[in-house]
């Protein structure tokens, strides 16, 4: 299955890397956002199937963006993509409605496996 994806990450390097991998896996990146505010404005415009959301952002954290996205669209599918591998984070973001957590660094095989794993569970 091919997804239309919004990437939210402050790092332009990570956005390009993730975008390359997603396209290689047959998905379409419809927009990229470098902050929480940009993500909240891009979401209603592009109505993506999936949001890849970083936690550390320059304005508001991904932990604040996530519930806001879910208020905009209760069916929003959000995958957290983060370098933060702390145990408490995964439980926290799942309680906020994220469909999964992908830890950086990752390769396209790990990304593909994660997308395959979370897709059936998505609301």
């Amino acid at each position, binding site marked *: 299955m091919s997804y239309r994806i919004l990437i939210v990450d*402050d*790092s*332009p*390097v*990570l956005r*390009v*890397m993730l975008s*390359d991998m997603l396209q290689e896996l047959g998905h379409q990146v419809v927009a990229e956002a470098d902050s929480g505010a940009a993500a909240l404005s891009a979401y209603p415009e592009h109505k993506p199937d999936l949001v890849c959301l970083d*936690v*550390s*952002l*320059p304005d508001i*954290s991904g*932990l604040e963006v996530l519930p806001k996205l879910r208020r905009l669209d209760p069916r929003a599918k959000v995958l957290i993509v*983060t*370098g*933060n*591998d*702390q*145990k*408490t*984070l995964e439980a*926290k973001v799942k309680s906020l409605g994220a469909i999964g957590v992908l830890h*950086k*660094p990752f390769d396209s095989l790990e990304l593909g496996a994660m997308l395959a794993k979370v897709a059936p569970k998505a609301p």
Partner: protein
Amino acid sequence: MELNPKSRQLFTSLIEEGVSRSADALGKMSRTEWGVISSSTNEIPAVRLLSWFHRDKTPHVAAGFESDKDFPLEVVLLFSEKGAKAVTEAVTKPFSERLRRMDDLVRLTIGEVSNIVAHSIIGALADKFDRTVILSVPDVRVGPKAEVLEKSLERYDGRNDAILLSHVEMFSENLAAECSMVLVVNEAALAELFERAGVL
């Protein structure tokens, strides 16, 4: 308030675990092995660390991070200019032209690489306290070691605050690149966290 010897030993071992996670993360990103040359945690005044770093005047690319207020700490990663270029080439090589043509690619890549490594070093510490510690986005600076480190020590009184400094040196033979990592924690704040969490 000071850490008791047992708390300090636990802190040091949590940082050692974080250092190992950091070397693994750096290796995975740059597709080559990184070894830890030295790793130490000491209570020293910030001014002494700066005077040690003042000996090296060569330019470095550094990325600084600070945590949220609940768990106050700073992490700084420093790469020599040559090392930063080598790491950037290794990390970006498999990706598209769009990435390699990006302005300021070295600074941006070191910022992203450091973000992942910095989270790795504090991971074990956060897990022990059952906390989620979110680091700021990277503040990337270029200059001599002491100069780029100074900014991360601004919130401390260099002579009077008791600061725990973890200093790690890593090296990749394949890339001929080294990475210095400095973690700064206010000892009194850390001791309070240990006490509140009843960890020891």
